[in-house]
């Protein structure tokens, strides 16, 4: 079986070509030890033989400057590497030959068999350029050159044929004296790297003088790009446009995601009830009905948000707008130890930290990326919204300041701003704590604007969803089952005894029985055990239980509260809503209302800062390749939440 590799600069249309070649016959893996996605796929040649295709990470040079580039270089340089290809297709943006050809000449001098794919050939004329392909092929040492338009799909069959019939001939080296020819790439001193690169560019320019003709005054597409840039990088319009786009994205996510999310919620609830009533009673049924099925539900529920957010991010990325956001935000983020590339993940965190953390892959420097990952969960995600809404309804009066500004709305806005402020502040602290191997820099290509291709976006969404479901799903399931066990079991006999005792005094409804059971389960005991530590924050043991169950997901707070506060109420009448019951609940120790302004805000601040999302932890583990960072993140966020809630309560009390 033949193995080919696609290599090329970022923005060369390499991934489009990969999608064109392999279609749905592709999957994503990981290179051992690094967080670089490995895209593998295959297609059948005319004889029906399978040809394996690996899409190597986009790279500008064989001398690696980032982890992604290092992966590509190692595979190409080391002929004993398991992924070392039999043939390399170097994909080149034909409208930007000069810079793109650098990588091609380097790979050619490694002695690896190459085909040159001249991509975006359709745009060439629009740019007023003309390439003599025959001459280019000759001057590069008689290598096969294939003209491609990976977006429309033309030239693909020709490329497949060239791959099939490729004959290795004695290759004439491009740069005779280059150290690359002796395989000196990864350990070449920097000064020599630069010398080699500069001399290659000189040679490339000479070749292009023969093969490339530029017509004056016809750079229309590029001029259009620059005209758009004038607006989107404008000191006022630039930010206004960015904010409007964010506004539209979040509106769409909140509006559109809630429909499938409610449906998923409902389906899994019904499934779990059906299993509970229709399977024979026993521990196994309970485990499936109350542990596993809700656990799977807890994974699936995130998919709508992940898909929607990534669809928007992919649109911004594919169109070329994303690098303009980085451009206008970079200077503003730098004082906090972040870069322009941290902005989009931070903003995405308002919807959900999971896709936001997955989106940090675009940040090429490890320190910048790590700091961004560590602070993203501080921005208030959509799962905190039900918690905020419930608590604000409880403790903030529904009045208007100066008859204009609604206090409840103001409180909600403050919580979101608090999240952003905390994220920036913590980033500032981490700037000094996290050691960087490299000085931070931003040397970034700004690609011309393009119309996004929907099939590329579709394949990306499929990939991101798969990664989340399989990689993070395992951990989420495991924790969900553990939490279920802790909530449904207690010390032997304790739960039954408590229920019996209570039923002697009065007739118990099912809700009341559930509440008593929860109170006497391991989690209930834990809630009571931590009461002394959370008392300074103004919490009672009921809130303690809710805090612990919220670890699975924050929104569980609301349902836990509902269960706990079903005690002692006459459900026959159903006169009180849960909110009224909570409002009237008094703390026996202080004699005050349990939910007053101080406890309400203390709880909200706790939820704003605490890491109560196992799914996020699982994703952080995947993206950092170790349990160390999720552990550190969990610890610092819990400490921060505790301290901030303590201060809030003591000040407002």
């Amino acid at each position: 079986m033949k193995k080919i590799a696609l290599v090329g600069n970022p923005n060369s249309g390499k991934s489009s070509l990969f999608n064109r070649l392999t279609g749905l016959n592709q999957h994503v893996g990981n290179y051992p030890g690094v967080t670089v996605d490995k895209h593998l796929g295959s297609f059948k040649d005319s004889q029906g033989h399978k040809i394996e295709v690996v899409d190597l990470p986009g790279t500008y040079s064989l001398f690696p400057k980032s982890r992604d580039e290092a992966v590509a270089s190692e595979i190409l340089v080391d002929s004993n590497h398991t992924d070392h290809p039999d043939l390399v297709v170097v994909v080149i943006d034909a409208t930007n030959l000069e810079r793109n050809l650098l990588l091609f000449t380097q790979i050619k001098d490694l002695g690896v068999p190459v085909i040159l794919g001249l991509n975006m050939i359709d745009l060439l004329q629009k740019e007023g350029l003309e390439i003599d392909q025959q001459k280019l092929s000759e001057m590069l040492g008689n290598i096969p050159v294939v003209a491609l338009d990976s977006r429309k799909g033309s030239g693909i069959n020709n490329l497949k044929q060239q791959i099939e019939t490729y004959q290795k001939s004695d290759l004439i080296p491009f740069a005779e004296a280059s150290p690359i020819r002796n395989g000196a790439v990864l350990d070449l001193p920097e000064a020599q790297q630069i010398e080699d690169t500069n001399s290659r560019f000189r040679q490339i320019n000479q070749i292009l003088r023969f093969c490339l003709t530029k017509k004056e005054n016809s750079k229309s597409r590029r001029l259009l790009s620059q005209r758009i840039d004038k607006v989107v990088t404008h000191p006022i319009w630039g930010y206004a446009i960015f904010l409007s786009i964010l506004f539209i994205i979040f509106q769409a996510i909140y509006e559109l995601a809630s429909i499938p999310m409610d449906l998923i919620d409902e389906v899994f609830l019904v499934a779990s009830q059906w299993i509970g009533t229709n399977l024979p009673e026993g521990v196994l049924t309970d485990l499936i009905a109350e542990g596993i099925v809700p656990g799977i539900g807890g994974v699936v529920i995130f998919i709508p948000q992940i898909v929607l957010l990534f669809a928007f991010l992919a649109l911004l990325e594919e169109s070329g707008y994303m690098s303009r956001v980085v451009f206008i935000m970079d200077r503003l983020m730098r004082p906090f130890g972040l870069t322009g590339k941290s902005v989009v993940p931070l903003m995405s965190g308002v919807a959900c930290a999971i896709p936001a953390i997955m989106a940090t892959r675009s940040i090429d420097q490890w320190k910048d990326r790590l700091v961004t990952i560590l602070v993203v969960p501080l921005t208030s995600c959509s799962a905190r919204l039900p918690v905020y809404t419930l608590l604000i309804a409880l403790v903030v009066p529904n009045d208007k300041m100066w008859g204009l500004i609604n206090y409840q709305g103001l409180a909600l806005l403050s919580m979101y701003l608090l999240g952003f402020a905390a994220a920036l502040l913590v980033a500032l602290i981490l700037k000094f704590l996290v050691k960087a191997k490299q000085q931070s820099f931003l040397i970034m290509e700004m690609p011309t604007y393009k119309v996004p291709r929907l099939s590329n976006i579709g394949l990306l969404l499929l990939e991101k969803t798969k990664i989340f479901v399989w990689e993070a799903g395992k951990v989420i399931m495991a924790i969900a089952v553990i939490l279920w066990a802790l909530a449904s079991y207690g010390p032997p006999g304790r739960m039954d005894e408590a229920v019996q005792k209570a039923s002697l005094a009065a007739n118990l409804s099912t809700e009341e029985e559930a509440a008593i059971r929860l109170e006497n389960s391991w989690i209930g005991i834990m809630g009571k055990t931590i009461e002394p530590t959370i008392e300074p924050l103004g919490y009672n043991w009921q809130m303690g239980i809710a805090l612990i169950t919220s670890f699975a997901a924050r929104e569980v707070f609301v349902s836990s509260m509902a269960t706990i506060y079903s005690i002692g109420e006459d459900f026959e009448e159903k006169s009180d809503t849960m909110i009224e019951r909570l409002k009237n609940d008094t703390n026996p120790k202080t004699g005050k209302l349990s939910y007053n302004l101080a406890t309400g805000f203390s709880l909200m601040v706790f939820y704003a800062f605490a890491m109560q999302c196992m799914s996020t932890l699982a994703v952080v583990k995947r993206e950092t390749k170790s349990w160390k960072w999720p552990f550190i993140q969990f610890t610092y966020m819990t400490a921060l939440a505790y301290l901030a809630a303590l201060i809030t309560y003591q000040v407002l009390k």
Partner: protein
Amino acid sequence: MLTLDQVKAQSVATIISVDDSPFRAKLADMGIGPDQLVKVLYKAPLGDPIAMEVGDYVLSLRKKEAAKITVKLEGEAHR
């Protein structure tokens, strides 16, 4: 001595040399080397980063990075 960060928008300059810095090799990969023509296009709000045309594409650099690049002014919109 003129460095690239001082060049005004819409001006064209030729690169003379790139100072030693941790990102010098990266700049070389992106086509920033001696004799290369660059045209400064526009700057982000606060004047940093800077976008410029290098050969056939647009590159953005932080001011700090552009300050390591010594250039010779060629004039206004010469290309």
